[in-house]
């Protein structure tokens, strides 16, 4: 028997800490990288990370460090859970230590501002690694940390990456499904947040469950069209990283994006909504990215566009809903035509 593979987890936020804990609970040694020396000491001495995951007693197999080389050098696999806007910087630094044989997973939902790059694209631009994948799904960190059951997806075109991801994360309380569509999973994770903002608005405006279901489903249809045009497999959107994550983000009042929607519907400005949250909700950026991407790929995304108008151009939420309702209704779902003779293209009419 070969010794259990060593893992490095980069980022000791709530998700990174939770994942490191899960991996160590499975008996695999983990080094958890954080920038913050006091956080490192707290994890190593008290086995807690109270600010990120209150109440969690972190497994003994997790060793925190503030040196990237220390975390990565003797690891076989690396999991990155760094917020999207800091992702590039950490990857660039980690690139000093990462080697071609490293298997790398990331668990970051979002696109880079302005460049609209996905996290796996950033990894390829900043490091030598090729064998990479993504972890995503309806996974509220706090629930996973409490040991509540959940499911997630590890997507990678590299079977060994999937195999390592499953071995590290599977447990009696976590079912890990496999996928190969990294692009699709990443787009779902980034763009569903925009739909969650719409759902938050709908909840606060008390427009009814019909309306909310309607908005969320149209959002999914738009997301699907865009993702498909960008090269994703349409069925990815029906999986845990797609509908699964969308359901939890749109339903859970714990979701930051949902709360932004609620605040906006109450009449708060975007700045006020963000300030009340204390942190930035991913969907605020993602709506901009989605609009640009929709333009580039020639996809109509009225729901995303209206959320963006509310967020960044001051359109009142009530008017946004009225305007959405006045649009001509086209096909319910896109037809995805494919085959050897015709390149697949989504069509809307």
């Amino acid at each position, binding site marked *: 028997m*070969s010794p259990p593979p060593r893992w490095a987890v980069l980022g000791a936020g709530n998700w990174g800490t939770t994942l490191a804990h899960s991996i160590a609970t499975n008996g695999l040694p983990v080094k958890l990288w954080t920038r913050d020396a006091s956080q490192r000491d707290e994890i190593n001495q008290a086995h807690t990370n109270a600010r990120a995951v209150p109440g969690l007693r972190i497994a003994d197999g997790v060793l925190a460090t503030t040196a990237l080389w220390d975390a990565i050098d003797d690891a076989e696999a690396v999991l990155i859970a760094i917020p999207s806007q800091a992702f590039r910087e950490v990857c*660039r630094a980690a*690139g*000093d230590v990462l*080697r*071609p*044989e490293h298997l790398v997973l990331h668990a970051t939902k979002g696109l880079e501002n302005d460049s609209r790059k996905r996290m796996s694209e950033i990894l*390829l*631009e*900043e*490091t*030598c690694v*090729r*064998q990479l994948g993504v972890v995503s799904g309806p996974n509220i960190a706090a629930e996973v940390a409490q040991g509540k059951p959940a499911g997630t997806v590890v997507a990678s*075109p*590299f*079977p*060994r990456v999937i195999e390592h991801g499953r071995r590290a994360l599977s447990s009696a309380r976590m079912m890990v499904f496999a996928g190969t569509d990294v692009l699709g999973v990443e787009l779902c994770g980034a763009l569903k947040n925009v739909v969650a903002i719409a759902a938050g608005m709908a909840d606060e405006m008390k427009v009814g469950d019909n309306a909310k279901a309607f908005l969320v489903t149209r959002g999914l249809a738009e997301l699907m069209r865009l993702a498909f045009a960008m090269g994703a497999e349409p069925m990815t959107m029906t999986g845990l990283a797609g509908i699964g994550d969308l359901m939890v983000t749109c339903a859970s009042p714990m979701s930051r994006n949902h709360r932004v929607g609620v605040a906006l519907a109450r009449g708060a400005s975007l700045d006020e909504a963000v300030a009340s949250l204390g942190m930035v909700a991913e969907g605020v950026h993602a709506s901009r990215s989605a609009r640009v991407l929709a333009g580039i790929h*020639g996809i109509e995304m009225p729901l995303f566009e209206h959320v963006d108008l509310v967020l960044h151009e001051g359109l009142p939420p009530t008017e946004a809903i009225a305007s959405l309702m006045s649009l001509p209704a086209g096909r319910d779902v896109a037809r995805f035509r494919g085959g050897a*003779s015709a*390149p697949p*293209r989504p069509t809307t009419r």
Partner: protein
Amino acid sequence: MGTTLRDAKERARGRAHVLAGEEIATEVERRVVGRVLSRAETPTGARLEEVIHETISTEQARLARAEGDPREAADREFVLSLRRRFAHGNDASWGDLVALIVERYLQEISGHFDRRVYAMATRAAPVALGALLHGFVPKAGRPTRVFDVDDRVLIGGELGKLRALAEVGTIVLVPTHVSNLDSVLLGYAVYRLGLPPVAYGAGLNLFTSALIGYFMRNVGAYTVDRKKSDPLYLETLKEYATLLLERGQHSLFFPGGTRSRSGAVEGHLKKGLLGTAPVAYRHALEARTKKPRIFVVPCTLTYPLVLEAATLAKEYLRAEGGSHYVDVPDEFEQLGRWVQFLRSLLELDLSVHLHFGRPMDPFGNEVDEEGTSLDPRGRAVDPSRYLLVGGRLEADDARDAEYTRTLAARLVSTYRRDTVALPTSLLAFVLFERVRRDSKEPDLFRLLRGLSSDAGVKETDLHDDLGRALEQLRSLQSRGRIVVSPLLHTSDVAAVLRLALASFATYHPKPVIERRGEWLHVGDPSLLFYYRNRLEGYGLLDAPALLPSEGSRP
């Protein structure tokens, strides 16, 4: 991988003549047959009789499509004999039958390949090419400009690095594929740059063409029959290419597979032959070869006029329109077209651009002059580590296929960057987009029909668009997204227009675009489409994409 001293000595002795065709063929046969046999013993692998049956039925289907083609007579006879032996065979004879098929395929693939003849002929061929061009081009009674190949073929790019890398490892040239002239020009460029000879798989049709077959045989290409698609053939071909590479034979593949039918730069590459690079690299590492490294060198060809444009465009449109692909003898096999083509280049002082792009390792990392792989931030990377599992070199087809996908994506963006914008494609693009915009016709075929010669565009009406496109091209060039021909380093749009019209009027039997008074008329819509497509995908004039996103497909 137990390597004994005796093995190593034998290998060292063998190196002097490793590429003698016979030794290669024997080794390829041993590997392919061995693999097929051992796969058949696994519970999920194809059984031998299934492999043989699939070979026979695939070949039969292919031959049925080529009914009446005398070139296929030998293959037809072979398949017939296979069927007979298959019908009377038994478990004990399947292995022999597989070996027989592989042997036959190897003969076809490597039959012409002999290293000594090859080395000599590569050097002789350019001289022959020069003579050919000299001999045919000048017209009697006309003061002749000498056809100097060096004026007509502009070779640029990372030439010093290319020469240096050929010394420290094995080069795989991967050019874009525009015309059958590509291989001739590349052969010439390799000679001109003083590079060692390069082996490549040339389409069988090149051998059957009387004129060029002579050439091909003499530059020592091995043969690829693109119409053969049974798994045994593909595996044999791939193994052959792999072995050449791992033994240090510089090679050339067209990763697009065939000439671009649409005229667009390749957007989608075939992974088969590209995928030999990581495998050959691993084999070379395992054999502890002295120079195991493999360097993939993209090469972009840009023609102001394309010899076979009319046929290629027709084939693209026919395939898109849904009718069957028909293999017709094209301009490449017509001597008269060659002469006219070369004469046009000469008279208009036009040149073909051949650009060698930045070399990469088989995993898509750039390499420096010493052959060291670099990550995107310029940090040194040990490429052999991509093949490690638990510290040991290990085969992994799924992993290597993904590496090849990354490599292919990086090659595609290099092709786009290194493509040269020329007056012909620029004018074709601007005029086509003008008509497209005005007609608002979303259907390509209706649009092309609408481009009939009655409809014209006033020449001066194009000036604004031309100026804007020129500006956009310069901006793209400053960001390293494309190369702009010196012919377009001007703001004199009327001059650009004149130059492009003159080019379009010389070679093609029907001018692509014609000037009648103040009006420009489209003489040949499908050619206009073809030349336009070279500039697809750069966002010029903010025109929406016209072709499927993969770019050109065979």
